[in-house]
């Protein structure tokens, strides 16, 4: 099934009829304010960021920028911390996006049955979705505090040993994956629920009459219908998982115990805000863009194809 994001309702005849709304420049004029903002405050800074990435520059040391070509890229790409950041970001992205899908899909299927109180369940499940990410970090920090946190209190009351949630380096990544899944699963649930509602009922009925079991229906009716939404959700979730920063900063205000939570977002923040290493920071930005492109090229292409159909 092809990705068909929207019916094209631009009306050729109407637009070419003459009278108002016909001049060739008019569509661009309507887009001008938004485009100017995007060009001036996003695209132009991006180009500038690339130029900075070719310079050795640390404003804290009062040095003026020196052009050094691609040396920042070599330096960053050979920094063991950066390579570790790539590895951790990869683990985080794969881990949290697949868990978000797993739980989001199961809950969406359950919400799509004829149970009572569907909208109440849906609303309550949605709550973590838009919470301020940095405050989400803080919220879990309060709950998981080593000594004062309620999580460890419950564990010890139940006769278990308390766990160093926030201080044990080996728990850092599972913890971040868990928290990110907690806060972004609702997004997947919301989108997949919307997708499920658009699966034609006749199709489902027909396949039931034909004696297909649940998994057969899931595989050959529901999943194909959901494909466009799944592509879009993948795009968003991967894009945002790759830049995870706020929540981690909300918990540790650093890269965690023994740098065990040093994902790319945190690495970037340290280069810019802690070391004031603008050249290297800009370089990391560009490498992050490159990595994001690798991960999202496929869904973007799908959407583009659907658009131009």
């Amino acid at each position: 099934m092809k990705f068909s994001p929207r019916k094209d309702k631009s009306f050729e005849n109407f637009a070419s009829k003459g009278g108002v709304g016909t001049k060739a420049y008019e569509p661009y004029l309507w887009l001008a304010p938004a485009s100017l903002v995007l060009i001036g405050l996003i695209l132009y800074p991006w180009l500038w960021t690339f130029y900075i990435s070719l310079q050795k520059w640390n404003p804290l040391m009062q040095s003026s920028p020196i052009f050094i070509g691609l040396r920042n890229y070599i330096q960053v790409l050979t920094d063991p911390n950066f390579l570790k950041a790539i590895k951790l970001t990869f683990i985080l992205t794969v881990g949290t996006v697949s868990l978000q899908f797993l739980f989001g899909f199961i809950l969406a299927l359950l919400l799509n049955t004829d149970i009572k109180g569907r909208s109440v369940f849906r609303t309550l499940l949605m709550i973590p979705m838009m919470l301020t990410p940095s405050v989400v970090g803080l919220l879990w920090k309060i709950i998981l505090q080593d000594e004062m946190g309620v999580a460890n209190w419950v564990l010890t009351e139940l006769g278990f040993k308390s766990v160093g949630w926030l201080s044990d380096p080996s728990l850092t990544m599972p913890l971040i994956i868990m928290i990110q899944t907690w806060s972004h699963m609702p997004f997947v649930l919301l989108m997949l629920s919307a997708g499920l509602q658009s699966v034609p009922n006749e199709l489902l009925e027909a396949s039931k009459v034909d004696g297909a079991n649940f998994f057969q229906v899931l595989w050959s009716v529901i999943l194909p219908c959901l494909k466009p939404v799944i592509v879009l959700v993948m795009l968003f979730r991967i894009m945002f998982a790759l830049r995870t920063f706020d929540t981690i900063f909300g918990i540790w205000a650093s890269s965690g115990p023994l740098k065990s939570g040093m994902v790319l977002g945190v690495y970037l923040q340290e280069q810019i805000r802690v070391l004031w290493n603008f050249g290297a920071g800009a370089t990391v930005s560009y490498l992050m863009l490159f990595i994001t492109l690798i991960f999202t090229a496929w869904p973007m292409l799908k959407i583009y194809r659907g658009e131009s159909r």
Partner: protein
Amino acid sequence: MKKILKKSSIYTVLSIAVIISILPVLWIIMLSLKSPMETMALPPKLFFKPTLESYRMLFGGNETTNVVDLKMYLKNSFIVAFSSTLVTMLFATLGAYSLSRFRFKGKNMISIIILATRMLPPLASAIPLFLIFQNAGLFDTHLGLLMAYTAINIPFAIWMVRGFIDDVPVEIEEAAHVDGCSRFGMLWKIIIPVTTPGIAASAAYTFILAWNDFSLAMMLTSSNVKTMPQVVLSFLTPEGIEYGPMTAAATIALLPPIIFIIFAQKYLARGLTMGAVKG
């Protein structure tokens, strides 16, 4: 019998999921309503007399224990989020109308580029913005943050509003066109009234994104225009943590997103699926 069993297991799974989703949030709200001395006391008292003492400390009610004056930061957050939402929605609606209703060269390319501007993390354009703002006197001002948030939020807003405009049948406009209505008149008198719920939901979404931002505010402000997320985290000082006021400030910061989700999620699904779901 089998049916009842199936139903009750569905309810059980959903209830567990709901508990996991909301318990951490409820817990923090509960802590904020305890007296500041008992906020983190263990074992935690589940039944207690709620008090607003922690909140009072945030608003200068008690001078001896006054931690920060939250009023200023709340005001900053509201001013910046609200004004940037206005500008974002104005520009995005114009752009979305163009993408929805006109057929022109480079349309697909433009809409993909617009979406692609959201590819980089906000911190990536922060270095140049920091430099530009320093030179232009926009660093640590409301106007500077307004501009940054508008730029960051326009792409999503365009895609969302476009989806809502796409849902409006073109025929109404054709009729209006025959009656000599201008394009702008069509947008103002036909499209906007019909899509008000969708546009309102997009605006609210934009507001929350601006409200939630931490990294850009960290880079582009120093003391005057600090926003809520920064202040909530600032209770984490090496000298110790004021848990009472911190949980109260966190609750205040989380209230707008919670209210938003409860009221706008219906439209959010429609807007965010960007037409990938045929409704």
